[in-house]
């Protein structure tokens, strides 16, 4: 079973979704929770049987799909993708469990299970076309979730979401075809296998163009400034569950793809574009933080803060050294947990009052103390307080980039302080002071079902903030091998000096840890 565990992880939810059509609509939620629970158990099994000391791909599977054209069904996980897969199954479970009264709940659960298939598929795929298949397929369930259960502008928001990402990924597809063609020219065989592509060393001009083609697809998905305009609409109109999955998992596809494709395949182009992208990332951090400060809708605040944090992830990724990339992967998981939790929390208050305007609230701390506590905790995590999960990721990302540029890192660090300002301001508006609005006076505090979703998230937030090692170590191992690959592959002097050579580097870190003991 372990040999095919990735295929099982991908297609079990899909199969369950097919069977789900038969389930009576009153029992659909229980069915969904059971399936998502099994899926989570399977993904935890994957973690326990995962060898944390190995850096390469594990649980590889391979089946020919279109061998005449080099397309094969190849799966595998390493430390980078493992935890995002677990996160995806975890959030599907939490999302279904915390689902409040929805119309057509059965359709929603079937859609979520299909979405889970595509999410796991994207992170487990090691063939570019298989990756692309899941990447594109993930748009369809999300389109339906936003378009069928969203707010008043839902159709506009869902189509904007779909077309934006679809356009970007088609450009990426052309890039993939070029990459396969270059591989064909070099070796005489067509191949879309990512591990084959890793071995291909391209001239710098080709790298630049291909990097650009892939960048369009990934940057829209992340979303990076100035392609981010679809995201606030999508978040604003999506139902709670849609926002949670979108922020926690779907956005990570873009940043994950940068690490899986762009960095190891085009190391010289990555170095070439390092500063332009870092500047975009910093604009993204500062600009969206400022926009977030101006919002009156709490969900928009969370949405923009989520974009802002994605900027830190990008910055860490393009530090191009082990600390930065490890940090950015850790921050992906942290951001998933924290912003997912924040969207859930916004959903809690929206269910009670059917408004998300901060001006409608005030003094909630005295009415809903438990809610205020959890919200406060997540808010602290979101602004990157030490001993919370976000801190580890942000710190490592910034540390990584500090080695490349001091000034830009200082700017980014300053921007995180802006993040603290708007989050605290929002918290103050909603929770402190006197209860001014009579409607808020008798709001019920979080109920058991909501706690069931929020407590595990709070525990993870603190646990991984205090003791990140179980996750950090496997990530670190895989990242080291990628950085080493980049260093070996790079052809320009600039790239050789920017990307550290770890054969010596590992020893230094070892001695320094020994010194610390």
């Amino acid at each position, binding site marked *: 079973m372990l040999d095919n565990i990735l295929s099982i992880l991908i297609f079990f939810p899909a199969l369950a979704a097919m069977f789900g059509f038969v389930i009576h609509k009153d029992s659909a939620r229980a069915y969904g929770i059971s399936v998502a629970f099994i899926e989570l158990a399977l993904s935890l099994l994957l973690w326990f049987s995962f060898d944390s000391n190995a850096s390469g791909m594990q649980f590889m599977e391979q089946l*020919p*799909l*279109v*061998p*005449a*054209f080099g397309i094969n069904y190849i799966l595998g996980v390493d430390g980078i993708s493992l935890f995002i897969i677990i996160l995806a199954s975890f959030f599907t479970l939490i999302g279904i469990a915390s689902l409040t009264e929805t119309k057509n709940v059965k359709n929603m659960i079937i859609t979520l299970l299909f979405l889970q298939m595509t999410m796991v598929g994207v992170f487990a795929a090691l063939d570019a*076309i298989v990756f*692309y*298949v899941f990447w*594109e*397929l993930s*748009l*369809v369930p999300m*389109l*339906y979730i936003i*378009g*069928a259960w969203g707010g008043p502008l*839902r*159709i506009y928001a*869902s*189509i904007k979401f*779909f*077309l934006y990402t*679809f*356009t970007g990924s*088609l*450009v990426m*597809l*052309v890039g993939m*075809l*070029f990459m*396969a*063609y270059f591989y*064909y020219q070099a070796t005489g065989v067509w191949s879309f296998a990512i591990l084959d592509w890793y071995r291909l060393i391209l001239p710098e001009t080709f790298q630049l163009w291909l990097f650009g083609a892939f960048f369009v697809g990934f940057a829209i998905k992340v979303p990076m400034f100035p392609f981010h305009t679809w995201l606030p609409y999508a978040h604003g109109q999506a139902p709670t569950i849609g926002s949670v999955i979108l922020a926690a998992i779907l956005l990570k596809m873009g940043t994950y793809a940068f690490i899986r494709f762009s960095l190891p395949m085009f190391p010289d182009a990555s170095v070439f574009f390092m500063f332009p992208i870092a500047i975009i990332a910093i604009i993204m951090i500062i600009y969206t933080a400022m926009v977030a400060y101006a919002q009156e809708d709490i969900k928009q605040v969370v949405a923009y803060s989520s974009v802002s944090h994605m900027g830190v992830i990008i910055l860490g990724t393009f530090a191009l050294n082990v600390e930065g990339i490890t940090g950015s992967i850790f921050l992906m998981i942290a951001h998933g947990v924290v912003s997912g939790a924040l969207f859930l929390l916004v959903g809690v208050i929206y269910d009670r009052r059917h408004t998300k305007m901060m001006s409608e609230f005030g003094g909630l701390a005295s009415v809903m103390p438990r809610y205020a506590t959890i919200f406060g905790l997540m808010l602290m995590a979101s602004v990157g307080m030490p001993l919370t999960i976000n801190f580890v990721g942000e710190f490592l990302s910034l540390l990584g980039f500090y080695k490349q540029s001091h000034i830009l890192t200082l700017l980014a660090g300053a921007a995180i302080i802006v993040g603290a300002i708007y989050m605290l301001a929002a918290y103050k508006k909603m929770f402190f002071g006197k209860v001014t609005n009579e409607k808020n006076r008798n709001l019920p505090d979080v109920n058991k079902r909501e706690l069931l979703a929020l407590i595990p998230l709070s525990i993870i937030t603190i646990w991984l903030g205090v003791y990140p090692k179980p996750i950090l170590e496997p990530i670190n191992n895989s990242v080291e091998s990628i950085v080493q690959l980049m260093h070996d592959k790079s052809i320009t002097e600039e790239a050789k000096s920017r990307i550290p050579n770890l054969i010596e580097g590992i020893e230094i870190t070892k001695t320094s840890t020994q010194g610390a003991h």
Partner: protein
Amino acid sequence: MLEPVNVSLESLNLMTLSPMLIPIIGALMIIVVDLFKSGLDKTLYVMLSLLFLVMDFGAILESAGAFAQNGTIMGIFDVMLIDGLAILSQLIIVGASMLFIPLALTSKRFHEFSYPEFFALFLFMISGFQFMVATDNLILVFVGLETSSLALYTLIAMHNRDKSFEAAVKYFTMGALAAGFYSFGAMVFYALTGSVEINQIASVLAANKYADIGYVLIGVTFMLASFGFKLSLVPFHTWAPDIYEGASASMAGFMSIVPKIAAFIVAMRIFEFLIHSGVVWLEVILYIFVVVTMTAANIWALVQTDVKRMLAYSSISHAGFVMAAILIGTTQSNSALFLYWALFTFTNLGSFSMLWISRQKHIPAHQSSDHSYNKFAGMVRTAPVAASIMALFMLSLAGIPPFALFWGKLYMIASAVSGGYTVLALIMALNSAIAGYYYLKLIVYMFMLDPVKGADEHVFTNNASLSLRTIIGLAAVGTIFAFIAVNPLLEFITAFVYNSGY
């Protein structure tokens, strides 16, 4: 004193004719049956036609086997040319027709199917298309073209709607114009080279190193205009949406597939040798045709209010997309053309059949036309399975993986990439993104909007019968599981195209 001409029967290789003769015999037989006893039910004729088509398919498979062993087969004074292109395109033509003909078995009664002539004409038309693709001879191409076109005009006119007559007459005039252009172009080539065989023309032109390039270009221009009409390339496309609207949905689906593949083959035979021998003007003009057809048709499709007209524009755009294969002109691109069209057959026939089963006898007040978008509003509430299948076809047409057409698009864009047409590859990709919008629009209507008040809930499967459901089921299965079929299909197609020297 005339010498008696001695031709041995074997040298004629009459077997090359058998795939075309089978539908002709079938058509004659249907007429004879009607002579003996008139007023027989349409099911008889449908099944007879289907039987002959199956036999036809078998005969083509047999010649495919012969081709795989011995290479290209010539026959009847070298007029017939059975090469890989001829076999592949005949397989698509007859295969699509086999899927089409059971669509006549609707649960509602339609005027045209009560005439046995409908089925006889249909079979004549098929043999016409088969002649068109299985020859190198411009005159036989013309004969095939006219046989099939005249039959097709009549088939459209038999649908009992005001717009059908208009459509048939429009198609007739446009078709006559195209035929005129074609014969004039053929005449110019004959005047230049003294031959009506494409390979002879090619070798004569190559021998005198394209000395009369001016005349060649005149001939090419007429040919382009003629195929522009047949393939509905912009700006010769204006007939297509009106005729699709006037014809029955099933006929429109048929027209979007079968006549076009026949025209593609002839265009491939004529234009590719010209492009390869360096007629730059043709390359430029084809490039423009391809890009404008793809893009403009997509933009028109965005503003349609009727699903059938939208699909008409979408199939114009697809034709432009596939025309790129002829422009690129490598083995890979020619294989991509067949792969694309084989997959497109399933998807497009499926989507038109979905319109066909929702065909009403009378148009209710809230609908502006037979298949207006608002007819499909909230379809998921009343007919969830039908809505899901329709959405599946739309996603496939938009090129969402892993559904059928994605693989066609993938391979076509890949052939553009490896043929050195980088910009074209990007334009093709971006056009797929534009197209995404109008396919999505139907999905939005079906899944996200509320039904129009007072709409008949059963309209979506109004016209369904077991055989229609079967056809749609086949199309849906073909669309979903295309990823399994792509590899064998691709190997088969590439071998055939490569062995015919394209």
